[in-house]
């Protein structure tokens, strides 16, 4: 995913060129520094999944599927259902992706997206209990990256959120003998919040949103912030071996807060379309 090995000279030239361009507030694809690429969210694309969403952010393409199973709670949270988010950058997504178990980049990706969902309390996990301490609903979200063109964090987050928000499952109940039975009723997950992720890159002295692969190849640092509907920040992560100064951190948080409101409408649009369809 990041194993691109380029000639150092070329690398430096590309970066110089990009910094020069950015200093004029221009980007290779003609966007402004704080302009997002086009975001397309389609839900309900995989009938066999409980919930699913295909998301395009520019040429970045991901698909998420939710499976809801029953399982045992973790010993230290006997009163909560389970949420597991996995992400794989499929080998078909880029010339640099390799088959095999998720590498540290894919693990970080899944864990940051998971934190946004978990810490925003998107799913009320306390409502996913079947038999307290023994049987709970387990929500598995698997996200497959199909085409890489930068900003996997946001694309993966949007697909995860949209697939969870539109997931449906048969209502279960526990009979007198302690057996779990399913009813005919189909219900959604208990959704309390919709978290929205916004990622910025620092290249030289410039902060920009929604970086492409070409921008990520020369960026110094990446910062992702996730917000709920009340502008609370609920997850964050800096990435890459570059730094941000104190003002840049605060500026990034402010920019992300504003852009999150913009993306929120698009996500809600994608979710609602499904509810109607």
């Amino acid at each position, binding site marked *: 995913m990041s194993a691109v090995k380029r000639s150092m000279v070329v690398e430096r030239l590309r970066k110089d060129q990009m910094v020069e361009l950015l200093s004029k507030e221009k980007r290779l694809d003609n966007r402004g520094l704080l302009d997002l690429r086009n975001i397309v969210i389609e839900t309900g*694309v*995989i*009938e*066999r*999944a409980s919930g*699913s969403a295909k998301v395009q952010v520019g*040429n970045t*393409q991901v*698909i998420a*599927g*939710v*499976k809801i*199973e029953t399982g045992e709670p973790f010993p230290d949270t006997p009163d909560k259902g389970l949420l597991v988010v*996995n992400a*794989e950058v*499929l*080998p*078909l*997504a*880029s*010339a640099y992706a390799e*088959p095999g*178990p998720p590498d540290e980049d894919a693990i970080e990706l899944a864990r940051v997206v998971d934190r946004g969902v978990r810490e925003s309390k998107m799913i009320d996990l306390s409502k996913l209990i079947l038999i307290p301490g023994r049987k709970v609903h387990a929500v*598995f979200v*698997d996200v*497959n990256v*199909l*085409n*890489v*063109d930068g900003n996997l964090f946001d694309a993966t987050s949007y697909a995860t959120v949209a697939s969870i928000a539109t997931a449906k499952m048969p209502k279960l109940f526990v009979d007198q003998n302690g057996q779990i039975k399913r009813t005919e009723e189909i219900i959604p997950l208990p959704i309390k919040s919709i978290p929205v992720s916004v990622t910025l890159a620092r290249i030289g002295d410039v902060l920009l949103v929604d970086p492409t692969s070409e921008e990520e190849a020369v960026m110094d640092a990446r910062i992702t912030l996730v917000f709920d509907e009340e502008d609370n920040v609920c997850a964050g992560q800096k990435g890459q071996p570059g730094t941000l100064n104190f003002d840049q951190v605060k500026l990034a948080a402010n920019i992300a807060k504003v852009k999150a409101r913009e993306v929120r409408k698009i996500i809600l649009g994608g979710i609602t379309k499904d509810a109607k369809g």
Partner: protein
Amino acid sequence: MVELINEKGLRIDGRGVDELRPLRIEVGVLKNADGSSYIEMGKNKIVAAVYGPKEVHPKHLALPDRSVLRCRYHMAPFSVDVRKPPQPSRREIEISKVIREALEPALILEEYPRTAINIYLEVLQADGGSRCAGITASAVALADAGISMRDMVVACAAGKISGQVVIDLDDTEDKEGDADLPIAIMPNLNQVTLFQLDGIMAPEEFEKAFNMAVSACHQIYEVQREALIDKYFGKGEAGEE
């Protein structure tokens, strides 16, 4: 035992015994891949991508006189009713092998010595016959990548359900039926490149099923051609979907 063919001779989804499921092939769906395609065949939804010819890593695996062909057939965890763990199962490893062997005869690998050509299949949703749909999609993606080919490759299963020979089994027919016979052919060279059989058939049923599967392959081949023509010579006025 489920009744798979009704008194009118129709199957659960209303098809006749020699009728294909709805089939749709799209070419060039992924920006990064050298070639790609998307297939829907019944409820199968599969993306195929080709990367290559490119350098081989590690180098000692390169062949001096031809390209090394690799294939990975993989199912998304959400593609089946019960979540499938992401690591490759024994089934996926076997299918990856037979798909690679089904495609290799059609490729002129000698044109690309010391390189590798990688085919990646991701099954986003699985129905009966996903290996056949995967082969059909892979061949299109290989053509999209501009790899030299002797012929197309196209695949379809025949089988036996409720005592009758039918083509293109879906998931229920595959599980509840008597036999499944997936084959792949090179449609112009009249050669079989994949042949598997699962389940009981009398010798005469086997021969009938084999012949029906060959015919079905020829029908699917037309859809492959149209998809490639659409991509490379345009659809005229029609939109993309």
